[in-house]
């Protein structure tokens, strides 16, 4: 990056050239100012004048100070066309579609997982039957960490928080009779390596059902931040190699599965791990920038072709208006980045398209039904912020993965927002609020400021290699815990208005199934007996060589999946080839 201009510098120069036409005339502002001063001295109480700005503290908050009231005086520079525009018009602050939710409601995409591939198939079909419009597939821990169900590390973890996938046959069972050419599937692969292993299994499944890859809608996560900085793991490959696998997936998917979102830049899990909404977005943006540069190095100079399938994943939490503001800010920032830094031409590549999942960390174990209310507010903020797709966390979050009942309540929460509250009838209903516009501007500047900090460190891969990001998170969560314990952060029914007699409710949780573990082990045994061992070895060799010598690892994994190579076998090939990395830990 040295010698190169940072994004902040580029955007400041480009937007300056455009000039500004403030919404409020100097005369109007003068009149408001006089009125404001008069009101301040005659009506506002002294104590409120002294505490004009307060800093609200909440879980995962940004600690931005807030004034008592917002007026045009907090938006003196606001230029309607430059800052807001119209929906589906630059700078997209107000939304990416002209008619927003009137045209199409947000996709209701509840996570489904836990249990055997067959049971998960049942849950997916239940949600679709009740009006869900997308699939969101959670994987069990063994699958996320790329271990086969029969490895010793998997004991106690098969099928607990998601579905186990070892091979193509499991993918076939999960999606049996699900119209995968019509219903979009989000496969929560987490890591780049995991994506390289699991997604080709989905493609082989589609191929066997005779569904062409160019008909498949959906998304994978594929984010190296998840692998190297957010998730804890027994094995990591070095960040630079992990970033390469991320980009191999992007290249392969972009070329072969054109309707598929090849990455979901994952702010969500970073936020939930312990960052503000500002860092969440700055880190995702920094990754996006390095991807664009890497694809350019690989010879893909058409930035529109590359960027039009980039998608984001955010975590709306407690601070309601801030959440709305930052989604709006991020749309404008993504637009400016793509247009001014990368020279994008097509609107689609300048659209910040996002899936959101309501914050799980913000849900509490005490009086868990309260979580239905919390999640509904998070969801409402996401919708007022213009999100494309939504998962609402369930009230039993602090106990277990959602039961069928709690999962349905989450879906119903979405449907109530969509059909009963009427908030979907008008585009960007909070646009123009003095407060929300001031917050949107503040969030824009803070996100851009943190992006600048990361770029000055040499980019996001370096910021992860050096432990900068990990240190930032650890210090945030330790600080936050102190504020919860002192009561500076209020948590209802936990440290604020706590009931004198806290009774634990009867929450039905999923029991660990030894039987499922056994069935998965037996299935693997049968697979290993029936597949062509020579082909397996040959494909694993190719995969190791591709990792070491170059070429696309996703393509190598696809061939391996076809001949029955399992997930764990592919993981070991990656680890052998790249070697293992120890994350800088700042516990």
């Amino acid at each position, binding site marked *: 990056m040295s010698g190169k201009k940072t994004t902040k510098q580029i955007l400041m120069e480009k937007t300056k050239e455009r000039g500004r036409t403030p919404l409020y005339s100097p005369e109007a502002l003068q009149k408001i100012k006089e009125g404001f001063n008069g009101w301040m001295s005659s009506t506002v109480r002294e104590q409120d004048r002294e505490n004009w700005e307060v800093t609200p503290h909440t879980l995962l908050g940004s600690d931005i100070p807030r004034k008592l009231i917002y007026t045009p005086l907090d938006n003196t520079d606001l230029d309607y066309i430059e800052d807001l525009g119209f929906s589906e018009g630059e700078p997209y602050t107000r939304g990416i579609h002209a008619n927003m939710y009137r045209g199409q409601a947000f996709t209701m995409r509840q996570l489904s997982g836990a249990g055997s591939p067959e049971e998960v198939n049942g849950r997916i079909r239940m949600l679709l039957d009740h009006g869900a419009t997308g699939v969101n597939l959670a994987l069990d*821990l*063994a699958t*996320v*960490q790329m*271990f086969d169900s029969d490895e*010793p*590390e*998997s*004991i*106690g*973890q098969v099928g*607990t*928080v998601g579905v186990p996938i070892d091979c193509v046959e499991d993918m076939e069972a999960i999606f049996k009779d699900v119209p995968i050419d019509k219903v979009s599937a989000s496969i929560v692969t*987490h890591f780049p390596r995991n994506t390289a292993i699991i997604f080709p299994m989905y493609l082989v499944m589609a191929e066997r059902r005779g569904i062409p890859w160019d008909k498949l809608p959906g998304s994978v996560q594929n984010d190296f931040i998840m692998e190297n900085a957010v*998730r*804890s*793991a*027994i094995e990591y490959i070095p960040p630079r190699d992990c970033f390469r696998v991320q980009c191999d997936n992007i290249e392969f998917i972009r070329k072969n599965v054109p309707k598929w979102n090849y990455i979901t830049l994952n702010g969500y899990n970073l936020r*939930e*791990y*312990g960052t503000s909404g500002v860092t969440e977005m700055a880190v995702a943006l920094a990754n996006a920038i390095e991807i664009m540069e890497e694809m350019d190095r690989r010879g893909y100079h058409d930035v529109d072709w590359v960027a039009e399938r980039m998608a984001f994943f955010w975590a709306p939490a407690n601070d309601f208006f801030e959440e709305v503001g930052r989604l709006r800010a991020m749309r404008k920032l993504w637009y400016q980045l793509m247009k001014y830094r990368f020279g994008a031409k097509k609107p689609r590549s300048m659209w910040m398209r996002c899936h959101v999942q309501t914050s799980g*960390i913000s849900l*509490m*174990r*005490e009086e868990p039904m309260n979580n239905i209310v919390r999640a509904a507010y998070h969801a409402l903020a996401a919708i007022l912020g213009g999100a494309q797709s939504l998962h609402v966390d369930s009230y039993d979050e*602090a*106990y*277990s993965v959602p039961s069928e009942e709690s999962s349905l309540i989450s879906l119903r929460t979405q449907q109530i927002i969509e059909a009963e509250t009427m908030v979907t009838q008008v585009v960007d209903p909070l646009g123009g609020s003095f407060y929300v516009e001031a917050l949107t501007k503040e969030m824009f500047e803070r996100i851009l400021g943190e992006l600048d900090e990361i770029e000055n460190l040499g980019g996001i891969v370096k910021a992860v290699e050096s432990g900068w990001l990990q240190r930032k*998170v*650890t210090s945030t*969560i*330790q600080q936050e*815990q102190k504020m919860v*314990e002192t009561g500076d952060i209020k*948590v209802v029914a*936990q440290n604020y208005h706590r009931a004198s007699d806290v009774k*634990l409710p009867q*929450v039905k*949780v*999923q029991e*660990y199934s030894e039987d499922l573990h056994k069935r998965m082990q037996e299935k693997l045994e049968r697979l290993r007996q029936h597949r062509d061992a020579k082909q397996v070895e040959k494909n694993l060799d190719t995969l190791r060589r591709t990792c070491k010598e170059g070429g696309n690892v996703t393509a190598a994994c696809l061939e391996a999946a076809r001949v029955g190579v399992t997930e764990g076998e592919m993981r070991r090939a990656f680890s052998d080839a790249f070697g293992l990395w120890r994350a800088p*830990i700042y*516990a």
Partner: protein
Amino acid sequence: MAREEKGIKVLLCQPPLETHSRGVFTVAGILRDAGMEVVYIGNSTPAQVIETAVQEDADVVGVSTLCGGELVLGNEMLRLAEEKGIKERTLFLMGGIFPPDDIPKLKQVGFGGVFPPASTGKEIISCINTGVSSKRKSRK
């Protein structure tokens, strides 16, 4: 140095496949601030945990688990602790997300403290101070 004059040494870990570390890092900070020596070994199998606990001569082993399987893993860990002869002198703690019904079961197999979400630093520190002092007395 006599055992009781030494500071308290805590080994913190997660099961091999656990993806979450927010809880364990939060607790690590709390314990360090309270003057304890914290050794964080990250994702580890029960066998690795017990082996390290022996090597480090840890007073406390804390396991953070959020994704189920706590009974299977907890049982295995304490079985190995017994086998290696450290079960009686070590305080085993577990924190994270688990069904309420599992808490008495974990205590029954030998976990001296079980901490679901919203447990406070004070509770954890007090459990460690009491638990370690009684374990050290029984060592004499």
